[in-house]
């Protein structure tokens, strides 16, 4: 009787341990079409590409639209027969956790035989997984993460690392024009404590200094903050007449609701994370009129065609600003061009091919801009790539596609 009780208890403990570890691991391959994650390696007519990003957790509102953008691109490539091979996407959820991201990269390298890895939206996890990916001789194409230090010519993995999105310095360099034009007396900044927020603040301070501006006051907050009243009041009481809001969407929404609540009439210009659906959903009227950078030009046919196709496949609410899904889509298209040029070989051959690829018909960027890499510059956006969006009546809408932007 005692043995039965003991064994039952052991089973209970084991079951609980299994449940918890399964839930905590969070790195199970996510279904992403086809035989994703089978670990069988690429067959002669199929080539595997990997994606490591947050499919669950707080950053999933960035990571899931990215995955959908990849899937749509893969679907278009496979349906068109443009390539001699079929592309298969293997997606792994890293929950935006650097440790899990590194573990996911190791397993993707060991088991999935991918020809390249598409990096996710969070800079911290990309910094953690990049040495593992490039250390194994595999190319990484960073799609959405913006930190400047992701592309470092001094790092051992530089030759195999490419950044499709505009980085923070490019982004801030375009945005600074609004602050220069308005001639504010006291510009202040708010950012979260993540790699995104802190690297953003560093870029803001550098670009502002280059333009003869300075940040009068800056405040920080935890990501997923429950209340930002102290931060808002600190900036108001410091006499700020404009704010650079460099936080993720949900926190930016709480910030704007508090600005609205206290009736503070201040100009706010945001970072690119305000393209998140969560900002639109939570901020409500408080987000109206706020300006922030985007990569979508609604006067460009490639962009509007993509938006129509994306919304038909995933719904208009999945990625209402389409910034993250569009960057993901273009990343696969750049990779596909390079794969053709490298005869579907990975490693150094693929890196060399990427260094000569130009995408003139990209979904992202202003009309006339392009995405291209050179051996000396692994950052894709050309000059005049950036657009700006705002929110009107609860919907994202284009504010400007004529603000000059320069490749740093």
């Amino acid at each position, binding site marked *: 009787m005692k043995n039965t009780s003991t064994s039952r208890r052991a089973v209970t403990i084991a079951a609980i341990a299994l449940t918890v570890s399964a*839930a905590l691991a969070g790195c199970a391959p996510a279904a992403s079409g086809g035989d994703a994650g089978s670990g069988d390696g690429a067959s002669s007519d199929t080539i595997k590409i990997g994606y490591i990003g947050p499919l669950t957790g707080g950053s999933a509102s960035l990571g899931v639209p990215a995955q959908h953008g990849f899937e749509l691109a893969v679907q278009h490539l496979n349906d068109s027969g443009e390539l001699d091979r079929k592309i298969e996407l293997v997606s792994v959820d890293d929950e935006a956790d650097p440790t899990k991201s590194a573990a996911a990269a190791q397993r993707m390298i060991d088991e999935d035989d991918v020809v390249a890895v598409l990096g996710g939206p969070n800079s911290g996890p990309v910094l953690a997984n990049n040495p593992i990916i490039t250390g194994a001789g595999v190319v990484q194409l960073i799609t959405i993460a913006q930190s400047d230090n992701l592309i470092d010519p001094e790092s051992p993995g530089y030759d195999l690392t490419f950044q499709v999105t505009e980085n923070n310095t490019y982004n801030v360099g375009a945005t600074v024009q609004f602050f220069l034009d308005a001639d504010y007396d006291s510009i202040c900044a708010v950012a979260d404590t993540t790699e995104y927020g802190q690297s953003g603040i560093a870029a803001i301070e550098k670009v502002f200094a280059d333009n003869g501006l300075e940040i009068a006051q800056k405040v920080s907050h935890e990501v997923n*903050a429950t209340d930002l009243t102290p931060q808002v009041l600190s900036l108001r009481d410091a006499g700020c007449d404009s704010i650079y809001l460099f936080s993720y969407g*949900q926190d930016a929404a709480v910030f704007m609701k508090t600005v609205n609540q206290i009736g503070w009439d201040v100009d706010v210009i945001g970072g690119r994370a305000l393209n998140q659906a969560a900002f639109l959903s939570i901020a409500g009227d408080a987000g109206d009129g706020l300006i922030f950078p985007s990569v979508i030009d609604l006067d460009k046919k490639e962009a509007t065609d993509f938006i129509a196709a994306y919304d038909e496949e995933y719904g208009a609410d999945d990625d209402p600003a389409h910034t993250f899904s569009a960057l993901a889509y273009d990343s696969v298209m750049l990779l596909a061009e390079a794969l053709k040029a490298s005869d579907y070989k990975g490693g150094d051959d693929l890196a060399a091919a990427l260094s000569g690829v130009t995408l003139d018909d990209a979904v992202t960027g202003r009309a006339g801009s392009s995405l291209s890499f050179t051996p000396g510059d692994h950052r894709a956006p050309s000059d005049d790539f950036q657009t700006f969006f705002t929110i009107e009546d609860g919907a994202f809408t284009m504010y400007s596609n004529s603000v000059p932007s320069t490749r740093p």
Partner: protein
Amino acid sequence: MSTFLQLAVSGIALGSIYGLIALGFLVIYHATGLVNFAQGQLLMAGAMTTYLLLMKAGLGYPLAIVGVVVVALVLAVVFRYGLHRPMVKRGAPTTNVVVATIAFGLVLTAAAELFIGNTKYGVDPLFPGAPVAIGDISIQTQSLVIVIVAWALVAAIWLFFTKTLTGLSLRAVGLNRNAAAVSGVRVSRLITIAFVISVIVTVLGGMLVAPLIGAGPEMGLSIAVKGFAAAVIGGMSSVYRGMVAGVVIGLIEMLSSYYVSSAYAPVIAYAILFIALVLMPARVRQSGATA
């Protein structure tokens, strides 16, 4: 002065939510000796259910409140009869049950991500409209709703524990389960009632806070940690002390963030929990709560 009052208003509203979570912790703890680490995810369940019923299904608040309470009852029953009771009947140590509550919370998060979505969603306040202005300070209508409802719930539960036979019996169960059973108290039924009260209070906390910060699968943890700190500071036994402790934590969080530094605010909040845990165990034992 207006800045201080503005911060105080936010601190009281936020702290009232921490207090409700503390209430959820201590009702179950007092009846069973169990610390339920799924409190944060139960709050999330309330917020996400509110989003589903109010924003997706388009129901008004009256129906949404009924729906949220029904969901809370279902969760309480699943928690009690699907997890707690079977484990206790099989003689599982309290530590195993505590770990099971963590697993229960993780399952709730995963279910919310799978069936509702994994971003954060906006939820309309109970009374839409401009903030209420009192002198130089302004208050979101939802903050007023939070404070009024939270304290009304505390008062109702205090009355339940002190003025009703069932509530007094439940206190007896917490003090000495065997003596209560010998006296004819139906212990198992009362523990179920404790679960129902705890889960309803916590889920309603989620419903209250969702219009301020949105509803998302990952929203519960940081609020639950501060609610737990409030419960510990409140001695894990007193209905109103946990609530007061929650408000104190909310006030400290807001005031320190402004007057000290926003960068140190999270450290200060967690330091309070650490100090509370170090200093409070003796007081918790004196409360009479047992496994």
